[in-house]
């Protein structure tokens, strides 16, 4: 038998088949190629091209610094407000973009889904991977910004890597759930930009978590983005981590991932007949 040969039994199913990680791994090159397609198509025929990856968080940082930092005078835990806002915007911009892309990944690839089989989970996975490139570029600006304000990064900067991974898993969980539900209820995709906007203000991006009254703290930390944004600031600036909050975040993220993938695999069964 040749390498890569495998036997397949096609059956009618009421329940999703057992989760097949090895199949997903066989298709890992497709994740990379789809993510590259996403980036190529997004930035082709734009004047500024990939510079948009940096411009979006930088412009948001400038607007927030003027509106919330200067005019509203929001506190920022003793960090220069632009650095404070930018550190919140980095994970936020990534997560928002990864969620909205993975949420629409099934509907926007409907023609493909009707033509050829591949593990459907590849689509939201690729949608979560692609904006990592934007995040990497935006990170370079952070280094410059910190240097401008005379902040020396500490070794804890390396902790950003597991935090980014956690943000990716969070986006995958929310994105797969949204993608699965949007197959039947397209309204979700219209509501999504608004939901993401609400999510932004529920997350301490423009204001510090210390501003939230203590009795709401648990509720506040049930939003996994809170722990991620706080973690980003702590890691970049070498401040102590709020470990309990971070543990709660990780638990919420895992819960969301399980729920999202469960919904997604159920939607997969009837996907090509519904889309």
């Amino acid at each position, binding site marked *: 038998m040749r390498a890569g040969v495998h036997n397949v039994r096609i059956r009618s199913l009421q329940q999703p088949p057992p989760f097949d990680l090895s199949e997903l791994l066989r298709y890992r090159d497709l994740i990379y190629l789809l993510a590259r397609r996403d980036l190529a198509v997004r930035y082709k025929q734009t004047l500024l091209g990939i510079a948009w990856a940096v411009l979006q968080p930088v412009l948001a940082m400038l607007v927030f610094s003027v509106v919330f930092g200067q005019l509203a005078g929001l506190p920022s835990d003793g960090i220069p407000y632009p650095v404070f806002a930018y550190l919140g915007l980095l994970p936020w911009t990534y997560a928002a973009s990864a969620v909205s892309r993975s949420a629409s990944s099934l509907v926007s690839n409907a023609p493909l889904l009707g033509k050829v089989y591949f593990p459907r989970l590849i689509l939201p996975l690729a949608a979560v991977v692609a904006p990592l490139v934007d995040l990497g570029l935006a990170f370079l600006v952070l280094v410059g910004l910190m240097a401008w304000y005379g902040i020396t990064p500490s070794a804890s900067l390396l902790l950003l890597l597991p935090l980014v991974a956690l943000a990716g898993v969070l986006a995958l969980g929310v994105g797969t759930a949204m993608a699965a539900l949007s197959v039947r209820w397209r309204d979700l995709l219209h509501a999504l930009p608004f939901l993401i906007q609400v999510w932004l203000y529920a997350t301490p991006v423009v204001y510090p978590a210390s501003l939230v009254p203590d009795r709401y703290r648990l509720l506040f930390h049930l939003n996994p983005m809170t722990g991620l944004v706080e973690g980003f600031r702590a890691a970049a600036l070498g401040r102590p981590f709020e470990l309990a909050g971070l543990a709660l975040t990780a638990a919420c993220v895992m819960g969301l991932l399980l729920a999202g993938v469960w919904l997604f695999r159920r939607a997969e069964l009837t996907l*090509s007949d519904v889309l």
Partner: protein
Amino acid sequence: MSAFSVEARGLTKRYRVGARGEEEFWALRDVSFSVRPGELLGVIGGNGAGKSTLLKILSRVTRPTSGEADLHGRSASLLEVGTGFHPELTGRENIYLNAAIHGRRIREIDRELDAIVAFAGVERFLDTPLKRYSSGMYVRLAFAVAAHLDPDLLLVDEVLAVGDAAFQRKCLGRVAALGQAGGSAIFVSHNMAAVERLCGSVLLLEGGRVAAWGEPRAIIDRYLSAGEHPRFACGVRTGRPQIVSADLRDAQGRPKGRLAASEPFRIRVGYVLPEREQSVHVGIGVLSAAGSPLFASEPRDAGLTLPGEAGEYVAEATLPGGVLLPGEFLVSASLWNEGALLDRQEPALAFCVDAGSSPLAPDPLRRRAPLHVACGWSLLS
């Protein structure tokens, strides 16, 4: 290695149709068959017989409602040309993406890239965005990728209807070579000549059920003699001058679905004039399956002037045998006056011409043109 590369048992597919899914539609019912390694199975049947649903199930795009199928080996589906191609990406990027969608690793594609590009003949355009490709180049690239995926099972749905004859020949050669190498193919086609030449067995579907399965010649004959009768009938009367019907008949005026290449035939076009028209003309055009016009005709050509009084009319054109070579054709019907086009149905009809007992072109791929014009020949020196 298993005795079969495909074994299907009782495949059934039910779709729910209607606004709230209240109606059921059985696209496939209890379809069983098997394909041996090295065998090419042709699947034939009229529109809505379930051919495409069968391929969708075998390529795992959709699941059967009941029944099961075993596939041994890796399959490459070709449900439609250019699956997953993106117009903004270059030819090279699309080759990689397309092959990866079919489960190939990047290093496998690296090895095959040169062969794919050479087969498709797109060397000069490899780094050009696909949107600048001609449709012919697009199709060639798509088939080249699919054929070089080194599949054990190739599912082919009518791709051979597109592309020029030289490329069609190349594709058929590739399919035949696959069979010799122990791979299998399931080949859905209306091209009976190609099915008969390539396939070791044929599955005839009718209304979602297996009507026959076995030796090609007998089954193709059965299908052709039962061929449905193509006709056009307008759904809504607009109250304006309009083409209302069209159909195909044999020389005796009997409704006919398929023609032998040598046999004369008739095309009837019905039209309605709600009010008196100054002048009115009706005409037919015969088009190739790809939609390019081959010739047109109108009553005026034969010295017949049509009446302009209000009423319903049927005009009939008689066409000689031996002009259309085996293949598929479309008919358009037009209605116009001196000033303007009043109505056009394109295509109004689609029909097949079979080789029959004609000595002309038993192999349509050897003759590139769909028409035959009898020419006199002599050897001058």
